[in-house]
């Protein structure tokens, strides 16, 4: 490797990038956009589930019961209706996700004792939301039951009844169960995958498509110099974006950072090498920019998004898919970055993941240097 040739390639690439001002601006805007979109758009804490109620009795007690739904932050009682067809229409149209129907002789039945059945019609299209609606409405019902039972027992001369069991919950690492604390650190990995996929993957394909590859081949530059030269500018952009993301995570979204910066940047560097090499290989193989972009989407971005545990938990996937995730570098990076941010984990506990990333980095750089041959087709 000759330094002056390497420097020349780097300079050429930097000039090319800086001439393309819109793309350059976008590399800065991208982390901001993704951070905001994921930070605000992806929330696991389901709240304000729209609810319709149909009170077939309309007594004081039924209203009292429904108030418990209104008071819950998880439900948003949008409307009270007086017939089934309207209710069904609302569920069809998605105007409500949950409909509570109170039977005609609700208070009477409660007086005579024994269980009274209250209907909960659930739009289960979104299975997760349906699950959550069920468990929150169960909680509302349980609370109400306890209230009326205590009251009833007191009136029948029994001592006030204490709940036999309570759960003392302690949540570690993310006390308020904030979605942003889980999602936002992961966005760093997504950003890097995007840079690898969308920027690097076009660098070689572009030369082929524009016909400038012939000129490059006729120079004494070696494949290794070409690769390193092409990737260095994107590496720098990637690191800047990472720092930008980390800054936003900490100052804008208030995600705690408990770990060490050295571990953070070490893992970022390794992962950046992985995605850049991947993008480069795709670029060499694909030849056209359209093909390169589509392939890169599937090879780098999609796995980082879907199979890394970013949003969808890996241990819930079918076993075959779980095995495949071991081949996805983003999976290891995702673990590291979350642990470093939220748990403050240091190197000894992260050794396996770091090693896996390092192995991928070595394999892919070797593959990248081998992929390109100085030949015309």
């Amino acid at each position, binding site marked *: 490797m000759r330094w002056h040739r390497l420097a020349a390639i780097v300079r050429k690439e930097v000039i090319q990038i800086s001439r393309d001002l819109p793309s350059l601006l976008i590399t800065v805007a991208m982390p901001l956009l993704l951070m905001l979109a994921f930070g605000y758009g992806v929330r696991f804490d389901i709240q304000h589930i729209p609810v319709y109620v149909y009170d077939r009795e309309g007594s004081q007690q039924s209203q009292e019961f429904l108030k418990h739904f209104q008071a819950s932050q998880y439900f948003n009682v949008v409307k009270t209706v007086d017939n089934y067809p309207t209710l069904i229409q609302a569920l069809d149209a998605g105007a409500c996700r949950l409909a509570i129907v109170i039977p005609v002789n609700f208070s009477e039945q409660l007086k005579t004792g*024994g269980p009274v059945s209250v209907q909960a019609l659930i739009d289960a299209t979104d299975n*997760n939301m349906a699950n959550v609606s069920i468990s929150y409405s169960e909680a509302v019902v349980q609370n109400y039951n306890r209230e009326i039972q205590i009251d009833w027992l007191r009136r029948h001369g029994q001592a006030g009844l204490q709940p036999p069991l309570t759960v003392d919950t302690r949540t570690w690492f993310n006390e308020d169960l904030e979605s942003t604390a889980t999602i936002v650190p992961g966005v760093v990995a997504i950003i890097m995958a995007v840079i690898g996929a969308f920027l690097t993957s076009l660098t070689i394909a572009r030369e082929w498509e524009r016909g400038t590859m012939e000129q490059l081949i006729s120079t004494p530059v070696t494949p290794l110099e070409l690769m390193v030269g092409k990737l260095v500018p994107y590496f720098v952009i990637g690191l800047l974006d990472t720092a930008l993301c980390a800054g936003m995570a900490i100052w804008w979204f208030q995600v705690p950072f408990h770990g060490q910066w050295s571990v953070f940047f070490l893992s970022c560097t390794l992962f950046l090498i992985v995605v850049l090499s991947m993008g480069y290989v795709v670029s060499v193989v694909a030849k056209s920019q359209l093909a390169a972009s589509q392939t890169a989407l599937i090879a780098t971005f999609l796995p980082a998004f879907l199979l890394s545990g970013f949003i969808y938990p890996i241990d819930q996937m079918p076993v075959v898919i779980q095995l495949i995730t071991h081949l996805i570098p983003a999976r290891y990076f995702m673990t590291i970055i979350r642990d470093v941010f939220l748990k403050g984990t240091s190197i000894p506990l992260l050794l396996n993941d770091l090693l896996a990333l390092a192995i991928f980095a070595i394999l892919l750089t070797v593959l990248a240097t081998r992929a390109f041959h100085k030949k015309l087709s």
Partner: protein
Amino acid sequence: MLGRIRGMLIKEFIQVFRDKRSRFLLFGPPVIQMIVFGYAATLEIRHIPTAVLDFDNSQVSRDLLSRFTASPYFDVRTRLSDHRQIGDLIDRGAVTVALQINAGFAQDLRKGQTAHLQLIVDSSNSNTALIAVGYVNQIAGRFSQDYQRERLLATSPLIQSQLPSIVLDRRPWFNTDLDSQWFFVPGVIGNLILVMVVSLTAFAVVREREIGTLEQIMVTPIGRLEFILGKTVPFFLIGLFDATLVSLVGTLWFGVPFRGSIGVLAVGAILFILCMLGIGLFISTISMTQQQAMVSGFFFNMPAIIFSGFGNPISSMPDFMQWLTYLDPLRYFLDVLRGVFLKGLGLEVLWPQMAAMGVFSLVMLIISVARFRKSLD
């Protein structure tokens, strides 16, 4: 004019179907993405790795813990004897939940005092943590109820039989088994059409500009409108074909029901593809290189997917984000997809969504065509 459009169309189709690689690109990526998404995307949480620590070791404490062992939501992996082990296990990520019962548990219950169950949760993944806390509370609540009932039954059976209570009669509609594939698969169809049509359309025009063949076309007698039609009609057809293909994969492979009419879905798909053609054309007017087109495409795609309600319910987003979702055509198309697949809805319910997409596509196409004229001159 028709002859010229035909010439343009033939040229485009040749370009699209020219070699094996580009033919694969049209149909391979959507099917791969469909399958990976279908298997990987689930927010359901089961088999949460759990450790238990029972200092009381009484019959009731064992009864309580056995309810966790029996539950499909918890996977009780280790029984500990020292509470210091909990920290270690959670730090390593070996367990997500630890349950601890202190000595005196059975005694508290017997004396009618409130007994405590200690719950420690790793909340670095807030989704898993939220769901785990919910399940623990459900199990604890049921234990409480059962215990209370037995106690009353022993002391005053008459009172027990008259104790008022409400039971929730849950009826999940449209997706009775709460299957997450039924929820995600129709959504993926929308995502794929969005990504495919936008990037193909944007690339097709920008490619001509970048490699300099646009000038050649401009010197032919082809008019602006003919050029635009020639560029969009092929992708419109490919979009429709891909929509059919992934819908078939969804129903035949994943077994998602198709309860509505194909006609309604077709109307929705056509309107949505028109929206995406408008976006693709618009991107091509603001991009000089394919790299710019790709990045701008991503800039549109990512928020469009996140804010459509694809994975996370819109009703849980911050208010101002909820308003923004009305500008997202994918939001409407997802209503149509899920409405037709799972709910079997017709136009009488879905017309507002259709109208919204119609207006969006019209506005977008007019803006793009207007800008397009300028950008060609």
